[in-house]
């Protein structure tokens, strides 16, 4: 499976037969003109809603509430006041998103690192260490991918709040976390939920490394940990990046897990929880909603646009190679 990068596209286009007659050439060019035009029009239509949000978030409150954002082309009035308000405003209604922004960061970074490290170890074992029942372990992990995380929410929350007792013996006390300590719950939950897909994706990459390489290293007396550290890790950096981006977007954009394990308080609520709340209770405060939504979008957008190539590669490895 090739990636969807433009270079590949250029390569395959050359193999198209060049029409021999003039009429054929003209028709082909017209065809590709129409295709170009239509696809660009669709792409623009696809982007209009986001663009409208961006324009609106920069308009003064009165303007947003009384006229459509498209009127600002004829009557441009722009301000950063909305952003100032939602980010740093002190009043309870303003959103105070700067704090949530930090919450989002604090939730996301460990929630990406932990599954990445654990999954990569597990994927190596499943691909290159021979042990009995290996295929069954892999299939079980693979199947867990599809268990809806809704299935785990209620018991996992209880696991944190009451601990584990088996036959009167306390195996694990309740976590009793307050305020920002609740981040640990969210990390734990995200790590658990991410592992099946992470193992599956990284296994796809790791199992395709050349076997000769491993064989040679083993003959030289390298142990599995050594092979893993010095040979496998450097080779799968693109895969790690792919999963990293995937997981980053997933955690940053997640609402359900955060809502349940972090709660809605100022100390822990990430951007998505805050925004969902604002959309519900202050549905008509468009000046805040638009700016707030854009604050939450901007980081994933930057990550996504700058690392799109890795992301696409990961997506294809995860879905097509199967």
């Amino acid at each position, binding site marked *: 499976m090739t990636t*969807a990068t433009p270079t590949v596209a250029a390569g395959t286009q050359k193999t198209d037969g060049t029409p021999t007659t003039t009429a054929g050439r003209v028709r082909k060019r017209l065809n590709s003109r129409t295709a170009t035009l239509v696809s660009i029009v669709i792409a623009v239509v696809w982007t209009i809603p986001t663009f409208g949000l961006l324009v609106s978030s920069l308009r003064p409150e009165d303007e947003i509430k009384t006229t459509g954002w498209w009127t600002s082309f004829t009557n441009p009035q722009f301000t950063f006041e909305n952003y100032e308000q939602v980010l740093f405003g002190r009043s309870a209604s303003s959103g105070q998103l700067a704090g949530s922004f930090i919450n989002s960061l*604090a939730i996301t970074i460990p929630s990406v690192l932990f599954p990445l490290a654990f999954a990569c170890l597990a994927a190596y074992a499943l691909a290159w260490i021979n042990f009995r029942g290996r295929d069954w372990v892999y299939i079980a992990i693979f199947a867990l991918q599809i268990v*809806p995380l809704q*299935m785990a929410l209620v018991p*996992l929350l209880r696991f944190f709040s009451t601990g584990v007792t088996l036959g009167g013996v306390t195996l694990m006390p309740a976590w009793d976390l307050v305020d920002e300590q609740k981040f640990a719950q969210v990390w734990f939950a995200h790590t658990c939920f991410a592992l099946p897909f992470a193992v599956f994706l990284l296994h796809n990459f790791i199992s395709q490394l050349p076997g000769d390489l491993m064989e040679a290293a083993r003959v030289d007396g390298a142990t599995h940990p050594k092979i893993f550290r010095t040979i496998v890790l450097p080779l799968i950096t693109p895969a790690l990046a792919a999963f990293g981006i995937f997981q980053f977007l997933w955690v940053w954009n997640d*609402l*359900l897990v955060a809502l349940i394990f972090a709660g809605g308080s100022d100390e822990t609520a990430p951007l998505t929880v805050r925004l969902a709340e604002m959309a519900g209770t202050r549905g008509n405060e468009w000046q805040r909603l638009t700016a707030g939504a854009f604050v939450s979008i901007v980081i994933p957008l930057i990550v996504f646009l700058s690392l799109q190539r890795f992301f696409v590669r990961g*997506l294809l490895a995860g879905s097509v190679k*199967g």
Partner: protein
Amino acid sequence: MEFDFADQQPKLLMLMYGLVAFVLVVGGLLLLLDVVPAWFARRREAQLVAASVGGAPLPRRPKQREGIFALFFLLPTLLLLTIGLVVPAIRTVLLSLMNRTSTEWVGLDNFGWMFSDDAIVRVLVNTLVWVLLVPLVATGFGLIYAVLVDKARFEAVAKSLIFLPMAISFVGASIIWKFVYAYRGEGDQIGLLNQIVVSLGGEPKQWLLESPLNTLLLIVIMVWIQAGFAMVVLSAAIKAIPGDIVEAARLDGVSPWQMFWQITMPSIRPALIVVMVTLTIATLKVFDIVRTSTNGNYDTSVIANEMYNQAFRYSENGRGSALAVFLFILVIPVVIYQIRNLRQQREG
């Protein structure tokens, strides 16, 4: 109107703890994996030396230490999956057979309630509409766009624009579209959709309040997000069709239409199935869009949203768990299908 950075320090400290824990756990594990085998190797060496000096028979090489390595590599993953997914999933199944406070067994009552309460039946129907429409429309659009853009210039840019919504959270996307659907009783419309309706001479509407239209409008949001995914995967599949097949077909003089149905479609069938399956599962679990846009009011609720309400707002653990179990039952066929695929690939 000022922002106090000092308030944020405990959070950053917590983040630091998290990172330290990460370094300790992962670093410790790697170290352990390095030190233990080295120790074993030294001991074996010593044994060999002792044996050769004393003239005793050489100790047999210990059998298969591979399994122990595998255990260590897999330990964190298996542990977390057991605590975080397997045990909770089993407990959810048990909870679904108990009453709201999980003190008494009630058999299948919760499932009976699901199919007899009109509001919940409505939720199930909505979910069905979602699951039927989203994969079909998003995949269809993605396929058409992938074929279209294949010949176009500016391909990379056009694709990026379609793909872009993938980076936006469901919450963000819901706000974007809520703004498109916005309604003003008097004066200028601020929502794009109503503006278009008005300029075509129609009456503006409160789109999100009108059932069943509102469910369809929420589905539009999901399609808007997911079509890019379908497009990227299918586009890659189309490009992977070997050039000589396409060439041969062209020499035989097939029309573009025939080309699409007889060459393109069969070649990308596996990718098509993967996309449909992925989208189906994602759609079954849809929660954020409904919650942000309408909070499940006006007849728009779906299973995942109702499950959240029952379990975490009304403290109906039994009913909430029953909904979660039902969600799982719906994906079981997909799981079986995927496992069969996987086993075929592993054998092949």
